């Protein structure tokens, strides 16, 4: 196995372990904090998609000429690969029709080995390609943009208006990072009342595509599609939503930035992270996964005005925590940074007495096999 192939293998193994750990973290958090259940549910769905994507990418890396990872920033595959998956998914059925069946490939492979006494590399690639398209056809992958769906509907008892918990996700093309959004949006449209909001609680399995308010659903989808990039702050997105839809009032918006991901020896990283990874002997533990939860919420609503001198729709005023420079910079109410660290790496850092320095801003989760410990 060449160095590049070994690296690719190690990268995918590390990603797999990290995502496994991440799923455990979300699961545990939902047990620790009851209200996080919805978030867990949403994130789990998207992490599943991401893992499917990685399965596809791993197969693709076996038969295609190159596989690129953004080694400088995110540690994720570059945006082009995400587009490629979407593109290949559309052609999957046609491609599967064209590729030989697994039995045929196996026969050819045996033939190549026994009769021609050659290494069946060609057929290995063919098989990888076949599996790639099969996985793409059968499993949902993480696309460039995943249209919103409503996970909960409830009624604000004070105003009597329905509110929706909406989620959507996108893969940012500049930062090469997957983003998951969860927003709480209040609906004050006149016809929002006809929604059967008494039928509570909203059946959990019955997630609605788009918004329950059908009149706004398509516009909302279009809006989300052009407002999902990482370079836009949450405040920007929320205020734009507030202005574009006079009857929708974003009360809270969260964004989970699932990355960056560091893999020792593969991604380029700063001294601190290098310091963490240097303390690890086993290559299996040479990784570090960080993610960020950003949140912005409305602190008050400026009432609508109808007057002789023009009118204005009600406007949300979002709280930006000016005490915290990080929050000001990112234009959000709060930022939570999390890190998932393999046990051995954390031990090494702890032994050097650098935990506070390195993980000071982070809520740390330590992974040891399938067990997760939350660092208090």
């Amino acid at each position: 196995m060449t160095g590049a192939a070994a690296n690719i293998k190690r990268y995918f193994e590390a990603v797999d372990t990290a995502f496994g750990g991440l799923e455990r973290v979300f699961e545990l958090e939902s047990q620790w904090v009851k209200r996080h259940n919805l978030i867990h549910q949403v994130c789990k769905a998207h992490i599943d998609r991401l893992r499917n994507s990685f399965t596809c990418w791993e197969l693709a890396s076996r038969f295609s000429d190159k596989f690129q990872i953004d080694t400088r920033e995110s540690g994720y595959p570059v945006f082009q690969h995400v587009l490629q998956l979407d593109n290949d998914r559309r052609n999957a059925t046609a491609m599967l029709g064209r590729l030989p069946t697994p039995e045929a490939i196996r026969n050819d492979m045996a033939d190549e080995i026994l009769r021609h006494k050659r290494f069946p590399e060609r057929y290995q690639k063919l098989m990888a390609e076949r599996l790639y398209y099969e996985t793409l056809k059968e499993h949902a992958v993480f696309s460039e943009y995943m249209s919103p769906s409503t996970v909960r509907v409830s009624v604000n008892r004070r105003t009597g208006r329905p509110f929706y918990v909406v989620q959507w996700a996108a893969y940012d093309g500049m930062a090469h990072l997957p983003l998951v959004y969860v927003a709480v949006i209040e609906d004050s449209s006149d016809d929002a009342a006809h929604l059967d909001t008494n039928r509570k609680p909203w059946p959990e399995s019955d997630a609605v595509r788009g918004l329950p308010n059908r009149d706004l659903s398509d516009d909302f989808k279009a809006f989300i599609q052009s407002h999902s990039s990482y370079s836009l702050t949450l405040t920007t997105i929320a205020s734009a939503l507030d202005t574009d839809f006079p009857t929708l009032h974003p009360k809270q918006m969260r964004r989970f930035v699932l990355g960056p991901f560091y893999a020792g020896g593969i991604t380029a990283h700063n001294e601190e992270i290098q310091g963490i990874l240097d303390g690890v002997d086993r290559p299996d533990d040479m990784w570090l996964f960080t993610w960020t939860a950003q949140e912005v919420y409305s602190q008050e609503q400026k009432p609508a005005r109808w007057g002789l001198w023009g009118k204005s729709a009600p406007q949300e005023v979002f709280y930006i925590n000016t005490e915290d420079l990080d929050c000001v910079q990112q234009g959000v109410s709060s930022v939570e940074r999390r890190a998932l660290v393999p046990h051995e790496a954390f031990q090494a850092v702890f032994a050097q007495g650098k935990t506070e320095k390195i993980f000071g801003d982070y809520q740390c989760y330590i992974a040891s096999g399938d067990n997760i410990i939350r660092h208090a």
Partner: protein
Amino acid sequence: MVSTQQLDREIEKTQELVEEMQSKIEQGSEILDRVAEADSFGDVNFDIENARIDDVLSQQKVMEANIADLIIGLEDVTNSFGSEFESMQGFNIAEKLVGIFSQTKAKAMRNDRVRTTSLATNLQDLLSKSDTIVKILKTQREVLDQRYASSEESLKKVIARRQAVTEELKATQNRIEELNPLLLDVENQIAASTEQADRTKLEGQRSDLATEYNQAQAREQELLAASQTLERYTSMFQTFVDSLNNQIAAQKTLINKLSIDTEQRIVLYKSLEDSLKTAAQQDVAHQINTLGSKVDTAAEETMAGIGAAAQAHIADLLELHEKNMLSTQEIQRRKKLADEAFARRFAEVMAKHETSSYAQ
């Protein structure tokens, strides 16, 4: 959205051409295989086969030119995406009209337009087109690789056969050289001999030798012809194998150019779209929010801190920019190499392409 129908049609046409080409290449190497295995060459019509090979070679030129043309066509199409970016940066007619009365209003209108335009479909379209072309190229390359391997094998066999024939020819010629003096010797002995029994024996010997001599001469003629035919075949198929090799190199150039082009375009367009959109609304949003948070008394206290943070932020941005530049530079460097290779190989096609246009 740019119209790309003509390019689509071209792609289809090329696909057909490539398929036709593949069957021709197959025919070519089949002939080669047959020659390598054939016992006699009587059933192979040299002129027809030669014409076929020539046909394959000329077809190959046409096909390569066609694909190169496609790639330049794709470049034209994507360049026209660039004009969409320009329109995003400038004001359109309605906005200019409004701009006469109110600059702010015009700007707001443009910002609205910019942030609602999505270039996602353009990027998808671009990727799927280049993907189709790359697939054509790759299947073609696979066929070529396979054919190249088997043809080379056959060519080796033909060369080995020719060698065997030449060796046999030499042996036969040597035998003839040997037989000549032997025959003379026997004839002299016959002339000198007086015994009837000896004469009969010698006559028998002479007749044996003469038969062998005649057979050897006939064999020499046969082998000479075979050697000549094989020589012609060898040079003919040498050309064929060379051309296969050449084609493989051409395919590599094309694939390389196309994949780097696509990579660069996606990175470039995505970052352009992103920066345009961000610039359009980040300012506005932050203006609104400073209004909103004015009441916050804590703001004043943190102002000094924000100043420092802003500077740190700028430093961050600089670093980010530098990193971004690095990766763009890397792509640029690779693109330059691919472009040069492409221009070297397909200069003619590029010149011809100037006269036609795919983007409307």
